[in-house]
């Protein structure tokens, strides 16, 4: 269609006789041909049609058919060129008009198709469902790629796990680490159990409100369905993703359960691989689903609720025992991110029933990017619902941006997730620093007089601004933009009202939350605010264990690996605007309740340092983009190597992987990215995991690239 249009327009611009000479016969030919055929047809029907009625049609005919393929043949049939010139002129003008209008209407149609692509793809699903037996390839591609946003179809067709070529890193030229090691002669030894991390595995809707009827038994988290459902009805989606405020388990009438098996963890979304490369690497040396399993869980739940609601610890224990029994070898457990905290809690629990259980069943424990001491990001999520470029969420972060989901909704959603509470930074000022100092301050920062220590730096907001904020409370972000435009004075030290260390920051957070939240922090977090917290008595259905109080299990022959990325800027502490009047900060609850719908804290995103670590109100430290180095490395490097937390002398190995950006698109790395999630496909990690799984754990040694040793040297061994 477009090609034809272009040729006509070319003709319009060219005035040369030779050109028109070559064109004219064709145009004529078509009209002649049509006249011919009409003549024939009128002949065929014995002249019932008056021939005069053909005339207007004939003049339009060329426009309709353009340059017909039969033109050449028709030319031979017709000899009459004279009337063609007149016709050509009319035709050209008409087609000039056509060109614009046609283009316009095509653009319009494309736009309409694009706008209505959701129903379209659903139509396509319908079509495919109806004609499902042996669908020819074209039939599934009725709707072009760009107009298709349905992965439901793709998932059902089994295409989803293949990523779009743009994002594909496997160009075939690279040698997969698994293949290399297979040729070296490595073969499966330990059965492998995967314990996935926070937000990266799928959740399936098992019971829902009427608004979610369509998503019954589909992944409401961890697929394109999620985007679908989210965009269609954000409130509905939120209602289903939230947990019960009080119990931290299912709210009435809603049931989400973890998707099962490796399929639940390999790809978060089409093209966004999580465990896929690691599974591939293990399969390369000979693992299959008999020896490699994933024990997924509902990652929203607090660790105690995991056992309460789903019996997850019992399941995991049984699963490990099954693998041990089936293969006659102790297992290797690989955890990622929050999965580390879950698994260590599990080990404490399992050891209380049988002190030797871990020793008898687990040979290797490899935790990848485990936030052993929590993540500062959890504070900002709970306080203001803000997460900076959250690595776990990747492009999904865009989805959770202000425009899609108001911050107060986000805060109340996050606060129901017990797992997030478990990720509140634990260890207190001994680890995270006080108002003037922190162990991981860089020498430059010490020179500049800045520190990671003040977890929250509070900025003054005048009474007028606060009042104005209330006036504008229907659109807080709008007001903030307005406010920030007026005084873009970054890092104005005079406006700083308070510097809060970690303990004080926790108090602010608790003061901001309701009674349920406080209760949950007490039971489900390892934070340093309450004497009741940090129990270690094997009751995971009640308490979350503090890694600083609960020693590692008795397992002298266990190899434990801490593998994590370094070299990425990672959130470490925050500068906050407080819209609350300073007086009411600890004041009556009434004022708070009145404004509960409003989020009173906002990251001071105008605050920057040119050569410093402060970026848009967030101070960044070394880490893997999500978890700061302090939390990734400190325990592995120091505390777990001493008797107090490691009484049986488990062999501890810390391995760091330096982040490198090598891909053309800078997207998801190509085996070099050490980002929090991408590290699961880091070549070094893959090789190391394979060595550990195939019985060569003893050959994998410490590898430190960061300043971790300087940092841990400043942390007391008996931090309390």
């Amino acid at each position: 269609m477009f090609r034809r249009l272009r040729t006509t327009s070319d003709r319009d611009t060219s005035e040369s006789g030779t050109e028109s000479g070559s064109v004219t016969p064709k145009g004529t030919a078509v009209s002649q041909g049509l006249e011919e055929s009409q003549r024939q047809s009128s002949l065929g029907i014995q002249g019932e049609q008056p021939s005069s009625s053909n005339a207007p049609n004939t003049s339009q005919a060329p426009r309709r058919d353009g340059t017909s393929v039969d033109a050449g043949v028709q030319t031979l049939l017709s000899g009459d060129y004279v009337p063609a010139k007149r016709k050509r002129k009319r035709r050209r003008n008409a087609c000039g008009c056509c060109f614009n209008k046609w283009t316009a209407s095509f653009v319009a149609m494309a736009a309409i198709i694009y706008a209505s692509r959701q129903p379209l793809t659903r139509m396509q699903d319908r079509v495919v469902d109806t004609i499902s037996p042996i669908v020819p390839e074209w039939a599934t591609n009725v709707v072009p790629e760009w107009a298709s946003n349905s992965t439901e179809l793709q998932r059902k067709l089994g295409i989803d796990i293949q990523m779009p070529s743009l994002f594909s890193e496997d160009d075939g030229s690279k040698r997969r680490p698994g293949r290399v090691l297979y040729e070296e002669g490595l073969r499966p030894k330990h059965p492998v159990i995967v314990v996935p991390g926070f937000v990266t595995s799928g959740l399936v809707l098992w019971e829902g409100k009427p608004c979610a009827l369509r998503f019954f038994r589909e992944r409401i988290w961890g697929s394109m369905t999620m985007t679908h459902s989210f965009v269609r009805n954000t409130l509905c989606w939120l209602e289903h993703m939230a947990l019960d405020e009080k119990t931290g388990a299912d709210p009435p009438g809603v049931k989400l359960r973890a998707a099962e098996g490796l399929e639940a963890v390999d790809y978060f979304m089409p093209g966004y691989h999580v465990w896929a490369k690691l599974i591939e690497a293990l399969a390369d040396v000979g693992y299959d689903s008999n020896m490699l399993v994933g024990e997924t869980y509902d990652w929203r739940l607090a660790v105690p609720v995991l056992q309460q609601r789903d019996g997850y610890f019992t399941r995991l224990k049984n699963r490990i025992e099954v693998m041990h029994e089936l293969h006659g070898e102790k297992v290797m457990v690989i955890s990622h991110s929050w999965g580390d905290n879950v698994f260590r809690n599990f080990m404490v629990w399992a050891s209380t029933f049988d002190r030797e259980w871990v020793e008898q069943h687990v040979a290797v424990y490899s935790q990848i990017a485990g936030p052993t001491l929590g993540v500062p990001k959890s504070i900002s999520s709970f306080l203001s619902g803000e997460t900076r470029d959250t690595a776990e969420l990747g492009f999904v972060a865009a989805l959770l941006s202000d425009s899609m989901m108001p911050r107060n909704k986000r805060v109340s959603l996050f606060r129901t997730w017990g797992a997030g509470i478990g990720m509140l930074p634990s260890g207190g000022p001994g680890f995270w620093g006080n108002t003037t100092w922190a162990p991981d301050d860089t020498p430059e920062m010490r020179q500049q007089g800045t520190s990671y220590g003040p977890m929250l730096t509070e900025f003054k907001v005048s009474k007028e601004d606060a009042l104005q904020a209330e006036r504008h409370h229907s659109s807080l972000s709008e007001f903030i933009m307005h406010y920030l435009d007026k005084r873009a004075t970054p890092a104005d030290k005079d406006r700083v009202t308070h510097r809060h260390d970690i303990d004080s920051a926790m108090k602010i957070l608790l003061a901001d939350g309701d009674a349920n939240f406080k209760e949950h922090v007490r039971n489900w977090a390892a934070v340093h605010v309450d004497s009741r917290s940090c129990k270690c008595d094997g009751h995971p259905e009640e308490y979350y264990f503090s890694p600083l109080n609960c020693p590692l299990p008795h397992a002298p022959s266990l190899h434990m690996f801490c593998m994590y990325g370094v070299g990425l800027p990672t959130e470490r502490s925050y500068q906050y605007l407080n819209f609350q009047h300073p007086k009411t900060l600890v004041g009556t609850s009434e004022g708070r309740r009145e404004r509960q719908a409003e989020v009173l804290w906002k990251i001071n995103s105008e605050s920057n340092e040119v050569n410093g670590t402060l970026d848009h109100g967030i101070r960044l430290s070394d880490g893997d983009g999500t978890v700061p180095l302090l939390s990734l490395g400190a325990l592995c490097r120091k505390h777990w190597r001493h008797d107090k937390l490691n009484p049986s002398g488990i062999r501890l190995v810390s391995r760091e992987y330096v982040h490198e950006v090598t891909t053309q698109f800078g997207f998801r790395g190509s085996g070099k990215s050490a980002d929090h999630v991408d590290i699961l496909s880091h070549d070094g990690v893959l090789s190391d995991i394979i060595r550990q799984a195939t019985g060569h754990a003893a050959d994998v040694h410490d590898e430190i690239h960061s300043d971790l040793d300087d940092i841990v040297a400043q942390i007391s061994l008996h931090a309390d």
Partner: protein
Amino acid sequence: MKKPSPLFTTLAAIVAIAAAAFTFRDQVPAVQKQASEWGIPINLPDWFKPSTQFGARRGDSNKPVRVGVLMKNEGLKPKYPVVIVPGFVTSGLQLWQGHNCSASFYRRRIWGSLEMGRTALRDLDCWLTHMRLDPKTGEDPEGIKLRALEGLEAIEWFMPGYAVWAKMTEGLSDIGYDPNMLETETFDWRLAVPKMQQRDKWFTRLKLRIENLRQLNEKKVAVLSHSWGDNVFRNFLVWVEGEVDGWTEKHVHTYVNIGGPTLGVPKSMSTYLSGETRDTAELGAIGNMLSNQVVPSHKRTWLFRTWGAGIGMLPNGGPRIWGNATWAPDDTDEMREHNHTFGAFMIENQLNKTMLAEKEAIRSPLWRAIFPWRHTAASLTDRVVKNHDIDAAMELVLANAGHDFRQHVKQWGAVHADPESRQCHVDAEKYFFDPLKCPLPKAPSLSLFCLYGIGVPTERSYYYNHRGTANATEGDPTNSHELWWIDVDAKEHDKNSTLEDGVRKCDGDATVPLISSGTLCRKHWRHKTLNPSGFRVVSREYPNKGKPGQRYEGTSKDAVSADHVGILSNEALIEDVLRIVSGHGDELQDDILSDIDKIVANIPLEQT
């Protein structure tokens, strides 16, 4: 600017109207309502209806209320944790290791997705090579590893729009089941039962899974099996009783056997002899794919003969069950009048060269064009016809399928044809058990429900063409398809004939004949010999009210289908299952609609 052409104006107007209408389609119902009040009916195509209508695509049928929701309103609650044991070919297989040609398939469903069809069409040999097992060992061939997909997602939808367990799990979740109480133990359905334990330790897995579920929920479990899953699970019971005495009594509350081919399926014989699968309900769409046009029959036998599971489905029980050359227990009165019988399991039509030529000529399109009235083999009156009963037919299959196959049948089949036919071995890693010899476990409080479909014509016996050869002994397995093929011209002119294109059909669920799905449940398992502890056995039949093949539409029509796979979406069956697992199984009694009682009356209780 000239006036735009009328053509363009028209088009633009249409586009504009369509776009506007589409944009405001949410208002359509209101307009429709208004219009109907004015007496103007407006009918719109489906796709045009408001967006919420698209939501009705899945998850709910045309019926306003799902059976599960009805049951929930009735007050049913989850009681026993449920373990699902899926059947033959209906669950997904995943490629874990393969040759170069299958690189794009790595960790994807090589079986059980639409793409499988596509890829098979693109590179058939590659696909077949990967689907095949090692003909000698019956396990993975060198360099290829297929494993069962895990979890409910592997068994719910075989393909888009082709529900297997989906409606059942939907019903279960409606009354409150979730993955904490509802699990499945999938298996590589190609494997012979002993191989499942040898290669994947499947029995151990299932045992531990059931134990874990019991421990987590503190309730004995209910096991649901479908089709071949029944044979697998009963073998498991024999094995587990050998491991731990009284295990079944302790861990299993109810066993629901849905469409189980307890005595095998006749179809397996034709598959192994000539690679011909016809009317394969359990294959559905794949049946077409594996049809003659796509996969030549010698490739099919080449593939199927390596699948040990199929060997376990060879008809079992010998002439006492399947009949002799003149009589069978399930012959209908009408057939007896006409001297027809299902007992002649294989009617061999020996062809010499001239007859062959004539027959082929008759089948050629040219012949049919010239002599349209002579397209039946009416001229072949002087043919040599031999009636083989089940034992003789089995011998034919064994003689033609090769040495490996014969060896495997001895271990992995329960068939009666071999004099070395075993007693009930406890060595589950080597042998498949004969249900006529191995009693059910001693578990007095267990209940066994046999739920199966009836009313669909089901393959029962065959008319075969045979090209005679000099040596009738051990045939070359690679060319048996050239020697044997189903005589599609065999027809009878009676109105109610059971013979159809060379295959005689009986009552059943389109795959499993009634005699196989019903006999043991109705008779043998209710007697001391095979059910020593005398636990409760209930047979319930579901008539096929829907048309088979309609399940693809995913509408409520499939809610009444009783064909082999469609029955899992049958609402009557789902209702019964929901009652059973929620602790109301005691209220369900036998429900017999077929002639099974007449049939079992003809079958002796004791098998020798």
